[in-house]
């Protein structure tokens, strides 16, 4: 028998981690998404982690074709998708094999025996059937023929075998809903909506769902299957929904454009995982959004700059490789001082790297990755909900300072969902764009007013002049220009002056002071993060503090320029630990900015940090 202590679920746990895993064709992402919605409606806090292969239709039953969806939900604050699942739903041998290692000892495996054929076992490289050979002894196993039960349940609808088996995921979901005592109503309604043109399919799916649910009820008294209740979390009163990072960025951009009182132009090119933003915005035309799928990444940003030049808020979005292609155009936006928002949904790199996995390795690229002295603000969001705020902030900086702004998000944030308290747009201060309508320079010798396209305001921003405005014709471009007239200038002193002005403008952007998100403003150890490491760091620091350790969590949104107080804040700690999903890029930037002894903790496996990893690192740093 297993020697490791089993940790089975109690009847009323604080938090539960469930992982749905199956073949790419099994509809696991959809299952996970619907389970997430029901979890949210049940009032739990939650975080999700969709983990899918890069292949669109990987061969059935293979190890590399496994698609998984993990959700962590609870009656307390949840910031990560959870280190180790309590429940693993494995729709085939490959799904079991790929996901077993992370399952908690004593965790529950729900497996579909109908898929554990010799052929599928071979494909998953199992010599013997793990459901029968005793190798799963340290877990609870609930194995039964979900395939057959599904076919039986949908029989009345006369579906072919293939279509009938497609309802397997709903059967499984029905069982999961029973297990966590959830209302099936919203899901039945959703199925009716989704298949409104195919009522047969809707009915079959609902029948499968109900059958899975009924199975839980009748099977309860025998075996390891029990109902589990997770109480609602105590959250701020208000209206909630679930949101993914890609949705939140899109909505934040729409809100940002409205606050700037500008139409938005979005130039994009298909790339994983950034495309979701293009897809969301393409459906929001009524909000003054024009989306343009360009011929390539370069054209996408150039068209966005062209639109900004003509008076829209230009936005472009991509992932690392696409961002690399946009570099030269960013330089032009910096040189011509036009507003632009560039969203980078980071993925594993370099080159094509790991398109569907997450990483934070484009930080150098964002901060330093352009030719010439090309300063550009960089801000990063830390969670799906935070992406909304950060997108608005990116629009504000772009418009108020006449500059391109890089917004860093990543594959994890883009796809992960969390409950989101729906914000009231009225609570955001508008930052309406101002266009120059009259000549702004002194009178010339003939007593006529002159135009100075590069005359700066108190923020260091030049005026935004829309083509089409009478009498303000002027020329801009990438060649160095005179500090006032904007005419071509090769004058050495002017180039020095313009380089200083461009840098000074970005350095002086008003950035709120850095706050400590958990802990004190000084002490033994500060764990400093940025981006999507927020969840695991926050949880790990919280646990360490509960153990009495002197550790605080600082999470930086404004990467460039950094908050003015950040250097002093870091110097108040004996040690600074910087966990990040790269080889230590933010650590280097912090050292460069503040000469502090920031120590790296790095991970580039394509998977987010686990809380346990970070807890161990904190304990190690304080040992």
């Amino acid at each position, binding site marked *: 028998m297993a020697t490791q202590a089993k940790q089975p679920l109690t009847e009323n746990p604080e938090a539960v981690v469930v992982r749905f895993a199956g073949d790419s064709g099994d509809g696991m992402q959809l299952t996970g998404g619907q389970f997430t919605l029901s979890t949210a409606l049940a*009032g739990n806090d939650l975080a999700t982690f969709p983990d899918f292969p890069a292949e669109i239709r990987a061969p059935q039953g293979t190890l590399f074709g496994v698609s998984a969806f993990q959700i962590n939900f609870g009656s307390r604050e949840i910031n990560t998708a959870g280190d180790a699942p309590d429940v693993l739903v494995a729709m085939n041998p490959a799904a079991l094999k790929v996901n077993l290692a992370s399952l908690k000892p004593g965790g529950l495996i729900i497996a579909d025996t109908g898929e554990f054929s010799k052929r599928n076992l071979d494909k998953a490289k199992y010599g013997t059937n793990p459901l029968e050979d005793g190798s799963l002894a340290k877990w609870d196993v609930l194995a039964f023929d979900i395939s057959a039960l599904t076919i039986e349940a949908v029989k009345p609808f006369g579906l072919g075998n293939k279509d009938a088996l497609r309802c397997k995921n709903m059967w499984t979901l029905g069982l999961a809903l029973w297990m966590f005592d959830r209302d099936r109503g919203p899901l039945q309604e959703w199925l009716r909506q989704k298949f409104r043109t195919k009522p047969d399919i809707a009915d079959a799916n609902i029948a499968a769902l109900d059958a899975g649910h009924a199975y839980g009820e009748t099977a309860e008294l025998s075996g390891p299957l029990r109902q589990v209740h997770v109480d609602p979390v105590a959250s701020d*009163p208000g209206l909630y929904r679930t949101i993914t990072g890609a949705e939140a960025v899109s909505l934040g951009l729409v809100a940002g454009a409205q606050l700037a009182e500008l139409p938005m132009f979005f130039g994009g090119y298909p790339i994983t995982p950034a495309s979701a933003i293009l897809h969301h915005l393409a459906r929001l035309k*009524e*909000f003054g959004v024009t989306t343009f799928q360009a011929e*390539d990444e370069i054209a996408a940003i*150039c068209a966005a700059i062209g639109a*900004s030049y003509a008076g829209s808020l230009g936005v472009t979005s991509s992932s690392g490789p696409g961002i690399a292609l946009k570099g030269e155009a960013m330089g*032009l936006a910096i040189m011509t001082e036009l507003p632009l928002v560039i969203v980078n949904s980071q993925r594993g790199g370099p080159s094509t790297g790991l398109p569907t996995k997450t990483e934070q390795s484009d930080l150098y690229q964002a901060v330093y990755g352009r030719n010439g002295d090309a300063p550009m603000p960089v801000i990063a969001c830390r969670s799906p909900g935070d992406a909304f705020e950060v997108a608005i902030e990116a629009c504000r900086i772009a418009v108020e300072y006449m500059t391109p702004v890089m917004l860093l998000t990543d594959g994890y944030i883009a796809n992960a969902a969390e409950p989101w308290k729906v914000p009231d747009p009225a609570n955001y201060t508008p930052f309406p764009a101002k266009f120059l309508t009259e000549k702004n320079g002194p009178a010339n010798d003939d007593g006529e007013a002159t135009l100075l396209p590069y005359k700066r305001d108190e923020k260091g921003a030049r005026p935004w002049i829309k*083509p089409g405005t009478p009498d303000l014709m002027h020329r801009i471009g990438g060649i160095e220009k005179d500090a006032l007239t904007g005419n071509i200038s090769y004058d050495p002193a002017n180039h020095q002056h313009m380089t200083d002005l461009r840098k000074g403008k970005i350095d002086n952007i008003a950035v709120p002071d850095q706050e400590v998100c958990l802990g004190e403003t000084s002490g033994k150890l500060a764990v400093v993060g940025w981006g999507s490491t927020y969840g695991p760091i926050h949880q790990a620091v919280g646990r360490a503090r509960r153990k009495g350790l002197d550790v605080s969590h600082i999470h930086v949104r404004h990467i460039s320029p950094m908050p003015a107080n950040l250097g002093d804040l870091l110097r108040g700690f004996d040690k600074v630990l910087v966990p990040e999903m790269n080889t230590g890029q933010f650590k280097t930037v912090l050292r460069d900015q503040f000469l502090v002894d920031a120590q790296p903790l790095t991970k580039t496996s394509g998977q987010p940090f686990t809380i346990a990893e970070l807890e161990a690192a904190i304990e190690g740093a304080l040992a």
Partner: protein
Amino acid sequence: MNAPVKIETTLKDWETDQEVRWCPGCGDYAILKAVQRTLPQLGANPANTCFISGIGCSSRFPYYMETYGFHTIHGRAPAFATGAKLANPDLDIWLVTGDGDGLSIGGNHLMHVLRRNVNMQIMLFNNEIYGLTKGQYSPTSREGTKSPSTPLGSYDHPARPAAFALGAGARFVGRGFDVSKNLPEVLKAAHAHQGAAFIEIFQNCIVYNKDVFDDFAAPKGAEDRQLWLENGKPMLFAKETKGLTLDRDALCLKVVDVVDGDWEAAGVIVHDVTNRSIAHMLVEMPFGPFPMALGVLYDDPRPTFETAAIEERARASEGKDTNLAKLLAKGQTWTVSGTAQDPV
């Protein structure tokens, strides 16, 4: 889009105070003057006119036009122009590019702006050389071109700009050369065309590729070597002693002699600017055995990209709620009041 109001201007109104920095004798000067002469004739409004260019000698053009101007990055001007046009369809956009800018580094963008049919005039100054970078051979250089990067002569086959444009789906293809007196007429026709209008302008780079177009552009004997096309008129040249006919067996054009001005008897065909098949033959016609086809080779408008975008936005917005608060609260929501959760 609003119908543009005609404005009265003179050539002087289109000149900037900037010193023109092309080499003395460069063909670009003549093109600049031709454009500055044409715009007043069009009743164009400088405030509504925007010149957008890439990088290269030709792309300095916007600095010399008293209009809005955007000197962008190498090869990408079509993308900037597309964004600007979508953001403000009322802008009258002239794109300036060259053979290197438009067909080498920017070939992709040129193809897409043409196939999308974004309403603008695209002037490609073809001098068959890289001027600004000091004389390397370009994608339109003829085979055997000796240059700093091809000291023994180039061996790649040149691209043909007009054929490229038509192949990419252009609905207007015009041709002229820097000092030709008919250039303004071609520019006017391009401007009148709704959609992407492509004009190849042969331009003499006096420093690095001097007189390379003299074989057809030199004034002496020009009429024998230039075929100026006019819609509805027979394709005649060499003082109407020669013309083009269609070899109906070989399906290609053929030069025929015209005796006593009886071009009909000689089978000379009448130029129809909407005939795409003939346009393909005209842009493929090798100079030497044939004259250089100039003027408006093809002109057959169809709906423009920005019009389609505007229409789609209007359709997609019809009857839709534009309340941001409602958008944020879309989908399945629930309210938290104290401790209990109620689905909405």
